[in-house]
């Protein structure tokens, strides 16, 4: 089999799918078109395995481009990310098919294009190809998310489009600068350019790249598009957007930052990145806590996870700056491992959320509840996702977050004590984010699946077909698998990232536990075995006392019958933390006296609005200013021909006099 077979298969199948989606108008054609993208995902997975076994694969296409020949390249690092991403793709494709979310020709077409652009961006080696794929990704994802084409969807989508395009402009400028200054158009040919372009320029380039790609990751202040888009678009699109797109961004960021530019001696830069990432993560977890819409919670959770990943990357840059190669490599490994895990559980959660929305016909937390009885299977799968995203053992989120914490604990190599302080601060931030975000996820799960239904839709959810749950199962399995048996992946990752930071082969696995520099290890398998063992012990003890019958009665109600209103609402659940962090949220609370139902009862209406400071104090003034300025300029088109002729004359005379 020729080396080009798999990649070309991977890239051509989605095209075929797109064509099918356009040509065959029938319902069945969608099946084929989604199968195409699933098949291409499988091809991608096989290719990445092949790369992992046989080493980097690189292909140069003879298709003429404006700027050198297009080239694609898959190194082990990319292969690892691509592998997981491809598996996720397959599941999402299945989901789109079974959930009947993507049965229109339009969505099938866009899905295939989206998949194609993501795969292309992930393996692109040629700068131009990367830019094209990256922007095509934003475009297709926007079009896919722009389902109902109501005006609100348009505004949400437009924000996304405009902001990511601004980011893309930064990325394009940075990459173009690298390309012209190095004379190379292939990322793999660029090596340690910081020596060539000087520290100042390289710092600028890296910052531009962080901001640029950050616009897709929801880095402050580019995050404002995320919640609206997530809540308005089908979970098929968001599942890909929040996982695959983020993977591309982080992957390219790592490659360019560490390999192409090389960040020796960049203390300030690393600290800046860490600070920005930390703020992002904090803000995201705070916001995730108070959202009413599950999709918005998940949007902010993506933002939070990306913030943590970038924070760890920043730490890696800091270690690199102080010449501590091995801690840097470990930090990088941790970040990428979390990226991979995030792919899995976030896709699982988003698709689960979509399923809930379809089953209950509701996605306002205030109107959900008690779904666990109606949809036990879904509740179990969703619980797995929730536990993983909340980083609880024995699931995958836990392992990678543990690794990130450990990575931040290597303060020794940093000489400057003041810079050292950055690490404990980072740990504090990360811990705070984790705790608050865990609360948010708990709120999401508990108020969706547990308690008493808060609306008719939640009372009697539409029973799910087995096929609707099927795409989620592989991801749930992956959550557990990556949690308990991640050694091969970790070793590959360590081997892949070590050269990026100039570390000799990093050793992360000791015996049965992940252990780095003998500073306390974790044995995920053992830990989960222990948990199982503990539960077994408990179970045995209980069994020893013989079986007892279970009696079902009403919830204890102190004598006043409970209804769907007399339980904690999501808003109420978040209230204590809201009070604690009042300075952050500045909620606008309005309590209005309503007409009394009877003279014994006071009726009060409570409304709470959480303002969006970034929109109100950054974006709105900016746009208003721009429009005002434009209005001033607009006066020049006054309609008077005499004025127009005056412009010509003045221009002429001024130029003649000035340049004579």
């Amino acid at each position: 089999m020729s080396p080009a077979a798999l990649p070309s298969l991977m890239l051509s199948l989605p095209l075929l799918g797109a064509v099918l989606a356009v040509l065959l108008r029938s319902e069945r054609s969608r099946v084929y078109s989604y199968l195409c993208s699933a098949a291409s995902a499988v091809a991608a997975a096989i290719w990445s395995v092949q790369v992992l076994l046989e080493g980097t694969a690189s292909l140069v296409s003879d298709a003429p481009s404006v700027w050198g020949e297009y080239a694609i390249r898959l190194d082990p690092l990319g292969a690892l990310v691509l592998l997981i991403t491809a598996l996720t793709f397959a599941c999402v494709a299945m989901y789109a098919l079974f959930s009947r979310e993507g049965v229109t020709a339009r969505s099938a077409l866009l899905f295939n294009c989206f998949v194609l652009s993501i795969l292309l961006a992930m393996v692109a080696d040629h700068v131009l190809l990367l830019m094209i794929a990256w922007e095509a990704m934003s475009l297709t994802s926007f079009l896919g998310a722009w389902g109902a084409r109501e005006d609100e969807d348009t505004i949400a989508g437009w924000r996304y489009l405009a902001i990511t395009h601004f980011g893309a402009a930064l990325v394009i400028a940075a990459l173009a600068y690298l390309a012209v200054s190095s004379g190379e158009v292939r990322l793999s040919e660029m090596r340690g350019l910081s020596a060539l372009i000087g520290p100042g320029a390289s710092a600028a380039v890296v910052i531009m790249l962080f901001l640029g790609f950050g616009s897709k990751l929801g880095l402050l202040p580019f995050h404002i598009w995320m919640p609206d888009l997530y809540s308005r678009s089908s979970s098929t699109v968001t599942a890909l957007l929040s996982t695959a797109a983020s993977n591309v961004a982080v992957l390219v960021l790592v490659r360019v930052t560490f390999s192409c530019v090389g960040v020796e001696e960049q203390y300030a830069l690393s600290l800046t990145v860490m600070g920005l990432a930390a703020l992002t993560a904090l803000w995201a977890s705070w916001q995730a806590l108070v959202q009413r819409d599950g999709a918005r919670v998940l949007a902010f959770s993506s933002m939070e996870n990306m913030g943590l990943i970038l924070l760890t990357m920043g730490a890696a840059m800091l270690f690199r700056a102080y010449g501590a190669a091995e801690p840097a490599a470990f930090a990088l490994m941790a970040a990428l491992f979390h990226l991979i895990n995030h792919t899995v559980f976030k896709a699982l959660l988003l698709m689960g959320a979509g399923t809930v929305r379809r089953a209950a016909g509701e996605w306002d937390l205030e109107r959900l509840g008690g779904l666990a009885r109606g949809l036990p299977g879904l509740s179990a799968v969703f619980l797995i996702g929730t536990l993983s995203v909340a980083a609880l053992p024995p699931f995958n989120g836990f392992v990678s977050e543990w690794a990130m914490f450990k990575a931040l604990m290597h303060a020794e190599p940093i000489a400057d004590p003041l810079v050292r302080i950055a690490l404990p601060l980072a740990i504090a931030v990360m811990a705070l984010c984790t705790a608050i975000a865990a609360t948010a996820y708990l709120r999401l799960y508990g108020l969706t699946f547990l308690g008493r239904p808060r609306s008719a839709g939640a009372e009697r959810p539409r029973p799910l077909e087995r096929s609707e749950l099927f795409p989620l199962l592989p991801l749930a399995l992956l959550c557990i698998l990556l949690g308990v048996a991640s050694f091969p992946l970790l070793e590959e990752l360590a081997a892949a990232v070590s050269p990026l930071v100039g570390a000799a082969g990093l050793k992360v696995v000791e015996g049965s536990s992940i252990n780095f520099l003998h500073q306390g290890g974790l044995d995920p398998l053992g830990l989960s075995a222990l948990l199982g063992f503990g539960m077994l012990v408990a179970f045995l003890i209980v069994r020893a006392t013989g079986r007892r019958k279970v009696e079902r009665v009403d919830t204890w109600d102190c004598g006043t019958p409970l209804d769907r209103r007399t339980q904690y609402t999501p808003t109420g659940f978040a209230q204590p933390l809201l009070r604690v962090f009042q300075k952050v949220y500045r909620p606008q609370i309005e309590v209005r006296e309503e007409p009394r139902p009877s003279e014994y009862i006071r009726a009060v209406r409570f409304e709470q609005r959480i303002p969006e400071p970034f929109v109100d104090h950054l974006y709105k003034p900016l746009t208003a200013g721009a429009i005002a300025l434009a209005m001033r300029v607009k006066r020049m088109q006054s309609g008077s021909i005499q004025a127009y002729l005056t412009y010509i004359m003045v221009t002429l005379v001024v130029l003649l006099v000035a340049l004579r």
Partner: protein
Amino acid sequence: MIEALLLVPLFTALLCGLARSERTIYVLSAAGSTVTALVAFPCCYQAFSGPPLHRGPWYLDPLSALFVLVIVVITLLVSVYSVQYLQHDRREGEVNVKDLRYYHVLLHLFALCMLLVVVVDSLGLMWIAVEGTTLISAFLVGFYKKGEAIEASWKYLIICSVGITLALLGIVLLYASSMAALGEGADTLDWSALRAVADQLDPALVKVAFIFIVVGLGTKAGLAPMHTWLPDAHSQSPTPISALLSAVLLNCAMYGVLRVHILAQAAVPGFSSSLLTFFGLLSVAIATAFLLTSRDLKRFLAFSSVEHMGIIALGFGIGGPLAVLGALFHVVAHSLTKTLMFFGAGNVIQRYRTREMREIKGVGRTMPATASLLVLGGAAIAGSPPFAIFIGELLITAGALASGEYLVAGLFIALMAIIFAAMTYRVLGMVSGRPQEGVPAGELGALRLMPMLVLAAAIIVLGVLLPSALGDALGSVAELFEVII
């Protein structure tokens, strides 16, 4: 050969003038423009591959060949699109057969003049042809004899004539500057001759000459702040003509500037390019302001033309292999994309009977095909990959970075981002939502979608690949600017 290229449109115009029935007029015009294209291709191929065709007053080098191609292709598409556009106007009772004949005669004479602009050697003849385009297209702009149309065409006529007059003065000074080099009574304004002695031209005169020419022809090319006629003319003329104006006519004027720019670069290195950079950036900036505020669909597109002319000027001003290649590529890309946008706008405007973008809602529901093409075109014209315009802008940015003009590059990128936001906001706003009642659903005919499909395919292909033929062509053009790619 070249004579044929010029004669075909002439005869087409005459035949259209003589034709009786509507059908024959349509068929004649479409056929005529097709033949023109068929004649044009071999000439251009020859020009690209071999030495310039230089026979009598004609001179066809790669640069002119590129513009000839643009002219004939766009004219062909326009003549196809015009058919059902005018039929619709006929049904609306806006025009009668006489107007129809008049329209097609003028259309082909217009094409003839523009071809003349790019194939003559003598700068004087070129000037005459440019003036000719103004005079002819003035009638096309005033085609609908409404008040606004006449106002627009008057402004167009006056402002452009003034500009052209200044340009002529520039040409005269250029001629004067060449006399020392060419000797008394050499008595030639041929560009080829001037090019031969370009480095011996009198610098002081060349400077002033270039100022006059960039202001004069820049007026016609729509460079700010001389662009003021452009939105009026574009918004009032029939939509196919607007497409022709902004996709071809502006390029023809730009062609004149480039010819002189090449000479001036040799005579006074750096002078003309800095002027072009200045005007380019200024045009982009001013166009941005108007793109943010304008509400009339066709004026909106017209200002986007100003923007793209600015980008082209900027590209040539920056110079260097990347930027010049980018600018040349942008000439092609902009013509195709802008034509697509104007065609889409034409469909929408005739369907909704208004140009107010705030009153146009729900195109996605009334005319899905047009809507999707509009969205594609909007993304393309806003400079997003994988469309052709992005390539041009990218190369120009890279060129600016390569030549160390970071400030220019930064401004350019920032403005591009703003323009993208404005452009997408408007287009998406029109496509989304629900149409107000009374707007009938349905497309306006296959002949109006077919050219748009062709254009969309073209810009996507050019956005991803660079066909080697076009690549070589652009390369041979770029050599005129003393850059080897």
